[in-house]
């Protein structure tokens, strides 16, 4: 498979795809948030509004057979990997036809049929699993790359470094993608991270590593495109996407006012990934409006599907625990 030609701006079809995917994630999370606020489902959700370019840029540079792990803020990764928004919304609603039959929820989105192997909600918890999956790929002589997304909250989890080391000594096809949105809930990455930061730490393990503008989907895609074939050949790598969430961590905190200033959030709003992309491409206003409307419609349909989807049978409580 040859790498897509650069500069990517020449490819209008790709532009449509990237904008459509980011719009889908935005529409999904806005709709999910409204439904959640209206009390249509329980638990909590973690929106990635403002971070869409990371998910879309990374996944667009992969082959369909590549595998992805995510975390508690994983709607964008799931949608970018091709999970059906209706099945996903039904999962948020806890319904039987949800992607995990209503037993996983927003923080445990999993859809094996599209290679979205799972979202682990313990910070950093999915990282060693990606290494193990890459070991299985390697052991079988398959070609897949295993990508694991994690937030800056995981930068100081020990298991990240155990996992980087294991991937390095065994030469496994793992791409580590850190979405550094600057905050682990309220604690800043700057405060929490000693020394030279994640990229230098990764290089110390022998990984190829670089920081990328996470608001720029084209830069994200270009970075991963340039790394991924080496990763496929067993040279693990890391991308640190510098990004920002334009909303609170979860339902419990506002976008600004507690640990972030309005000015700071407003400044990042200017670098909203959809706006950054619009400015960089020649998609017309009309074309963008059409894509956005189509994706909003798709998500409205997903919402309707979720609302009408059946609740799990009571017997589902005790299925898929162990055995049989």
């Amino acid at each position, binding site marked *: 498979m040859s790498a897509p030609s650069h500069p990517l701006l020449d490819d209008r079809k790709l532009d449509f795809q990237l904008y459509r995917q980011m719009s889908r994630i935005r529409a999904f999370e806005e709709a999910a948030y409204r439904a959640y606020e209206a009390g249509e489902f329980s638990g909590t959700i973690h929106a990635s509004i403002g971070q869409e370019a990371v998910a879309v840029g990374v996944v667009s540079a992969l082959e369909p057979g590549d595998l992805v792990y995510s975390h508690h803020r994983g709607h964008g990764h799931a949608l970018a990997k091709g999970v059906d928004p209706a099945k996903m919304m039904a999962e948020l609603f806890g319904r039987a036809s949800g992607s995990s039959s209503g037993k996983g929820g927003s923080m445990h989105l999993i859809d094996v049929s599209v290679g979205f192997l799972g979202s682990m909600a313990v910070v950093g918890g999915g990282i060693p699993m990606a290494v193990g999956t890459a070991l299985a790929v390697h*052991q079988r002589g398959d070609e897949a790359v295993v990508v694991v997304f994690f937030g800056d909250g995981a930068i100081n989890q020990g298991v990240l470094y155990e996992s980087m080391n294991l991937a390095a000594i065994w030469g496994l096809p793992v791409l580590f993608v850190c979405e550094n949105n600057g905050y682990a809930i309220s604690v800043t990455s700057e405060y929490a991270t000693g020394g030279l930061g994640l990229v230098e730490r990764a290089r110390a393990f022998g990984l190829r590593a670089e920081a990328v503008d996470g608001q720029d989907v084209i830069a994200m895609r270009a970075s991963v495109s340039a790394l991924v074939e080496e990763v496929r050949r067993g040279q693990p790598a890391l991308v640190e996407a510098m990004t920002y969430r334009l909303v609170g961590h979860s339902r419990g905190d506002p976008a600004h006012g507690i640990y972030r200033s309005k000015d700071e959030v407003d400044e990042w709003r200017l670098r909203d990934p959809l706006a950054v992309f619009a400015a960089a491409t020649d998609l017309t206003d009309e074309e963008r409006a059409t894509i956005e409307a189509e994706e909003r419609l798709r998500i409205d349909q997903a919402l309707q599907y979720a609302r009408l989807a059946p609740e799990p049978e009571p017997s589902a409580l005790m299925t*898929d625990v*162990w055995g049989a």
Partner: protein
Amino acid sequence: MTTAADSEQLTATFAEAIRHALEDAMAADDSVLVLGQDVAVGFPFGITRGLAERFGKHRVRDTPISEAATMGCGTGAALLGLRPVVEVDFGGFVMLGLDQLVNNAAKLRYMSGGQLRIPLVVRLGQGPLGGFGAQHSTVQHGWLANVPGLAVCVPSNPQEAYDLMRWGLRQSDPVVFAEDLRLYRAKGPLRRHEAEITLGARIARPGRDATAIVFGHAVTDALQAADALAQQGIELEVLDLRSVSPLDIAAIGNSVRRTGRAICVSDDPLLGGFSATLAAVAGDQAHGELRAPVARLGARHAPAPYNQALERRLFPSSDSILTAVRELVQWGA
């Protein structure tokens, strides 16, 4: 499948039986691989000795001292259909990997609505080895039996170790294999067969007066106590559970209803320990037919001491079982 070797009865130690089970499973199934520290040379207990030479270091993979990553790696490999056996030679070190085992391996099938299966086997050497001190002499079966999504096997002799390991390596969900370190050198008959093994308790010695509900090393202790008690006219039934999760509730009920007396033995502390679950089950199952209150033996509530005389006082023993059974039989007399 039966081969000539199947019918041959050998004498093997508990440790050798586990090695034979791993070897036979690896020969039969290319997806089985071993992950752990020093597994290529088989240090410290010799369990995996020779496997790297036979199957290659890609299937008998030494790991760095990174228990969390190793456990997560086993889980992530199992999810694609490999059958990793993760070795934790001293079971207490599993604490470093518990997030991966408990939050990922045990829950992913459920959290995925059945999309994912994790055919992972985790070998834990647990219990006191004699003077290894508090951090190398821990007991995990009770904690892990408390985790939905894990099965916990507790073999008591070489044949059982072989059979349960072969069984574990045929499952599609995670199995913890809790090996009592004191049993590694214990010898017994062994057939390397490929019979269909099912879980469930077995009566290791029949008796009419009381039931010792035991597993792992305590089976040896209870059988010794039963020999001594028989000299005194007391017939102790020894019920070997073989697994603590799932738990063979019916077998406990059948035995205790027959004998009317139960003593439940587990090497974890009485407070919150597995003997409490066993006692509750025995009480529920045999209520109305009990001739004495259900008795329990567990560890005293202290870390394992280094001094071996003290260490022996911490855990149940054949003597403490014998004394407790005598008290049970005399109860109300």
